[in-house]
């Protein structure tokens, strides 16, 4: 990152003082590595297809791609139990896929069809799935962070040992809801992982232009009992190692953690803005592209001899077929019927 021209508020390139961005490791376990690679590649190719579908008008509204951040979702969610909970933001396609919502159900939701995971009522920003305890993509920045604390509260109330993982972007750290939730989670010792996916920009505003303390994990210092952890989000194994400790802490000691996973978004904030040129330079984008979490794991595996070029090609082919199948399924799924308009406003039950 030596050629990086942009400097942060402390006058040095951000990457230089972040966690060492060493060459991405392999796990030494080829099966695990292949699973992680598969998980990240599926998100990548699915999202690229999503971009195409958006350009063709198959997907409407706001659509926020996750490309570049796949190690965060894969690294953390791959370690959860089925009865744990995941909640996130409007940039939610990647986490939904890793959590186990089928590519078909996600793509159908993006297409606004009845077979979508939210029956076509939520769209890109509001993926939900009761079967996988996926508690939604939420569209108001910061608003879902107290909800995650509430899920943690419920787990503790029942004496359970599940954990709740709450994904959020870096812009959330400056909003009141974030601090109110962190305070209560620390005060009441709630089993929640607050995961900041620091992709450097809240829409087009760089972290250091928005946050007085831009070492975001240090925001945890304000709350006794809350661990703040800095993680290299381009290395899926680094994400796994650090988050494993936080998951254990939550599960066994019912304690919250604040994880800052440093990552980068390779695409624009949503579909309507340029990838670079205004708030960030092409050079910066290129530098981070070299740290691509998917391809660096692949390269490490190829170098270690735990993946052959043929196996990689086969994985690409298999995933391309899955993604195409999700498109075909979504395209063939019916629009919600007019009667659905008035459904799901209220339930007509009492308990």
């Amino acid at each position: 990152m030596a050629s990086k021209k942009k400097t942060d508020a402390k006058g040095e390139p951000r990457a230089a003082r972040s966690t060492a961005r060493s060459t991405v490791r392999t796990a030494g376990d080829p099966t695990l590595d292949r699973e992680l690679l598969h998980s990240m590649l599926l998100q990548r190719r699915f999202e690229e297809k999503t971009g195409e579908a958006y350009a063709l008008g198959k997907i409407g509204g706001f659509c926020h791609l996750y490309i570049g951040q796949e190690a965060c979702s894969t690294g953390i969610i791959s370690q959860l139990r089925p009865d744990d909970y995941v909640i996130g933001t409007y940039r939610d396609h990647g986490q939904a896929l890793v959590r186990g919502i089928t590519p078909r159900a996600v793509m159908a939701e993006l297409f606004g069809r009845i077979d979508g995971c939210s029956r076509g009522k939520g769209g890109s920003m509001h993926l939900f799935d009761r079967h996988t305890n996926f508690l939604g993509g939420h569209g108001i920045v910061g608003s879902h962070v107290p909800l995650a604390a509430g899920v943690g509260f419920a787990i503790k109330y029942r004496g359970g040992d599940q954990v709740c993982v709450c994904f959020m972007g870096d812009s959330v750290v400056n909003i009141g809801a974030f601090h109110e939730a962190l305070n209560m989670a620390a005060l009441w010792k709630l089993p929640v992982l607050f995961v900041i996916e620091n992709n450097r920009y809240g829409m087009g505003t760089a972290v250091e232009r928005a946050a007085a303390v831009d070492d975001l994990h240090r925001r945890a210092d304000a709350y006794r009992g809350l661990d703040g952890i800095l993680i290299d989000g381009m290395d899926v194994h680094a994400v796994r190692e650090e988050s494993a400790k936080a998951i254990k802490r939550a599960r066994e000691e019912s304690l919250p953690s604040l994880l800052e996973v440093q990552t980068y978004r390779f695409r624009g904030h949503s579909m309507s803005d340029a990838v670079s040129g205004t708030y960030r330079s092409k050079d910066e984008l290129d530098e981070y592209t070299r740290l691509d979490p998917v391809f660096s794991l692949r390269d490490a595996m190829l170098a270690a001899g735990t993946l052959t070029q043929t196996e990689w090609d086969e994985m690409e082919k298999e995933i391309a077929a899955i993604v195409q199948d999700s498109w075909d399924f979504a395209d063939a799924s019916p629009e919600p019927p007019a009667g659905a308009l008035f459904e799901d406003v209220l339930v007509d039950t009492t308990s």
Partner: protein
Amino acid sequence: MPIITYREALNQALREEMARDDRVFLMGEEVGQYNGAYKVSKGLLEEFGENRVVDSPIAELGFSGVGVGAAMVGLRPVIEFMTWNFALLAIDQVVNSAAKMLYMSGGQYNVPIVFRGPNGAALQLAAQHSQAFESWLAHIPGIKVVVPGTPYDAKGLLKSAIRDDNPVVMLEGEMLYNTKGEVPDGEVLVPIGVAELKREGGDCSIITSGKMVLVAMQVADQLAKEDIHVDVVDLRTIRPMDTEAIYTSVRKTQRAVVLEEGWELCGIGAQVVDFIQRDCFDHLDAPVLRVHQTDVPMPYAKTLEKLAKPDVAKTIAAVKQVMYRS
């Protein structure tokens, strides 16, 4: 039948529902050790313990969100706001989270939560502590809004609200907590969405709710001395609104006054008048009038506050006007 205060009625409802269902918990500022800012939760901490009667930090946005999250995964929170004025800090969780969750999840996540606390003006609390938010909240699909005006309705509606599988907003009143009325011990359930004819007359309908029910009853008493007999329709629930109860009364009396605590523009009364003109146009013998708070922030000075509030005299004047009496 025992006569108890509105405050005690709410306390009974909470106690009974918490005993009935261990998923129900109470959270809010000062609800535990302090026994509630208005003593609604008196004795509950002692009875149910700190896991179920939870003193929160002063963080309305945060703890109301905690409630929504807990409700999404199966608990049944009762979130107490010290007043609805403070709940504006939490309105995002009421409107964007609780009210939308079922719909945007395609029917997967309902939010069985109650948001409750005092609403509207008390005495000389000035502009920031004297606001009635019925119309703000009733505007939103995905929640129910209940406004009990009597101890009986307070108990019955709170119990129904806690059992409802949807988000329910309950607007109480500081000036109501000490009012007394007959309330049976044990099970009292007032159905949500059902109005009640609190007084039967035949000359004019007063359609009202919440704290203004007391005003309307005084109006009815005073007018009776002048041989004017009014229906008092207590909506009890603002959303969903019991329009049939309104129509039945207005078709009979052919005259109506809508009395509300909030401001005029886009108020509850505006909606009620719209329902009436659509359904009862041919029955009306006079334009429907509205009584409401004057269109200013609430002043502190006693004299000015009185001028700003809807009251008995203003309502009597309105009834006489629609009856063409002076």
